């Protein structure tokens, strides 16, 4: 049993933490890639900024772009804003998350909002971002090992995985969708892409150092075991929602668990050949759209349901 508002906050807590991690990693990879004055560096910058819908800020120096991506409090889609919102949501449900979990988040929040954060970032952005990402991992680890894996935790997980599905899909869309975008084929740029998805080392273990777009696509869409592949992520979403929906009296045909099941099945039966025959866009667009529908269905089922449907007899 849990309050609808609390479920909502935990869900967003998961989303914002995932977003903060992803944005930090994009910034970190982007800054690292620009150390070499090559076209690959420019491509990496373009990928990262396009993936967060800020391709137009490419006019800025990469350092400035990254700094604003990380520390701009006016930008609602920055790391610092995401963490502030994550913390705000956590504060609303402070009674639901363990002290260990809360402390990791609070510490991280205090770090990025510290008055010295800007200087620390300027002095060593790589270290700064490395620490932020590590802290997010510590948060996730604390949540995993100290919170009961019940409803609260599951809502947080659903938020995290839904956010991840959308972020990875957008990243892949930027690189591999047909159309007027850039073609990313530079070896070093592709390595950067894998780093942005936190996938380089797991990828190498499967495909060795042969970095090819079709393998990257296959890995990040279909791999069964890699925690950032879309297939893996949709399986988790389906799994958590199926368990959450068990307790809900009002099961409709549009229940989020059914939508998630449908998406999972879609990915189960698709393969690389289909992906290449029809183009990556179609599938990636489906993933993004279905995620939005699942998001809405979660609201209708668990959070903002019509009262008259749930009145006690």
């Amino acid at each position, binding site marked *: 049993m849990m309050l609808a508002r609390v479920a909502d906050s935990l869900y967003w807590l998961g989303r914002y933490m995932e977003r903060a991690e992803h944005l930090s990693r994009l910034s970190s990879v982007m800054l690292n890639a620009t150390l070499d004055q090559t076209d690959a560096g420019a491509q990496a910058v373009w990928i990262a900024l396009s993936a967060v819908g800020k391709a137009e800020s490419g006019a800025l120096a990469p350092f400035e772009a990254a700094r604003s991506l990380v520390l701009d409090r006016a930008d609602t889609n920055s790391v610092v804003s995401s963490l502030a919102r994550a913390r705000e949501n956590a504060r609303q449900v402070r009674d639901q998350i363990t002290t260990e979990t809360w402390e990791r988040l609070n510490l991280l929040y205090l770090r990025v909002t510290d008055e010295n954060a800007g200087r620390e970032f300027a002095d060593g952005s790589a270290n700064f971002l490395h620490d932020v990402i590590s802290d997010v991992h510590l948060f996730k680890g604390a949540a995993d090992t100290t919170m009961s894996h019940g409803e609260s935790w599951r809502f947080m997980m659903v938020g995290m995985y839904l956010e991840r599905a959308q972020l990875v899909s957008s990243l892949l869309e930027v690189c591999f969708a047909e159309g007027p975008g850039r073609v990313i084929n530079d070896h070093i740029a592709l390595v950067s892409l894998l780093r942005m998805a936190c996938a380089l080392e797991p990828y190498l273990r499967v495909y060795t150092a042969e970095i090819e777009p079709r393998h990257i696509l296959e890995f990040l869409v279909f791999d069964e075991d890699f925690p950032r592949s879309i297939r893996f992520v949709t399986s988790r979403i389906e799994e958590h929602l199926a368990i959450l929906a068990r307790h809900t009296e009002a099961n409709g045909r549009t229940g989020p668990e059914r939508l998630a099941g449908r998406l999972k099945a879609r990915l189960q039966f698709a393969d690389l050949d289909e992906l290449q025959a029809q183009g990556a866009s179609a599938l990636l667009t489906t993933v993004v759209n279905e995620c939005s529908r699942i998001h809405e269905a979660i609201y209708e089922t668990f959070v903002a349901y*019509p*009262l*008259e449907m749930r*009145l006690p007899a």
Partner: protein
Amino acid sequence: MLLEIRHITQYHYERSVRESLMELWMQPQKSARQRLVSFELEIEPAAQVFSYADSFGNAVYHFDVPQPHDGLTIIARSAVETEPVLEWPMPLDMGEWERLKSTFVRGECFDYLQPHGFVQVTPALQAFMDAHDIEELRRRDPFSAVQALCDTIYKAFEYDPGVTDADSPIDLALEAKRGVCQDFAHIMLAICRSWGMPARYVSGYLFTDREAGDRSDPDATHAWVEVFLPSYRWIGFDPTNNVMTGERHVAVAVGRDYGDVTPSRGVYKGDSESHLAVGVSVRRARAAVAEPEFLRLPRPSTPFGASRRRASADAIREHQQRQQQQQ
């Protein structure tokens, strides 16, 4: 006199609202001089109705409508048998003023001696009192003083439903020299209380008799004043029609002012304005009870506090959270 009353209240919302809660002060009083024969409420959309007695002893009915709805209709039907007044009160001696100062009166009627809500001695009212030599009236005994006050107010104001609305302060009527029953009652209450005479607001219905010189609107609810005189206990004066209350008056609820006994008030959730239409008919029983001739759009009041835009709701909530006093 056996009277049948039908009081229809219709709320209409521009867009659907939900979770309406509403309280009604509509049931006629049960008292020695009026017998409640029957009372029923019809509510659309249907809802379960609950009741309680408020701190002034009035019967309050309340209900909620959780599902989305764009209208709410309340029909209150009652049948009341009123007693004719066989012996009208007579003037008293000046000692009544002293009796009003007794601890018992001041204790028992504490609430009806204080300014409250609409009942305030404002500078405008003070000016009115000066202009009409109201203080002079206190040279008479309390009963005659109130009677004269009732007459003064009746003559000083014209009845005009177009000037004030349900939440107008008395100053509006004082300035325009016109108003409705509610304004006259509030003005009279403020003066009586300033005299140290307990006085309360009465909401109810009037079986209008034009022949008898009534000027109130027959299709509206009515309001008047009751004052407490130790020799008579509570007696009613109707400054709108310059009469003492009799068998044509049906009392519903008493309070410190209109705000205590609004016939209907409620809150709802939703981003929509509400419009209110009220119709009242008071008929002699056995005469055919007809629907009111028309449902008029009365005072453009919104007794609803919750019709704010949703966009600002968060800001309001934050502000209120801060307003909470820390102890």
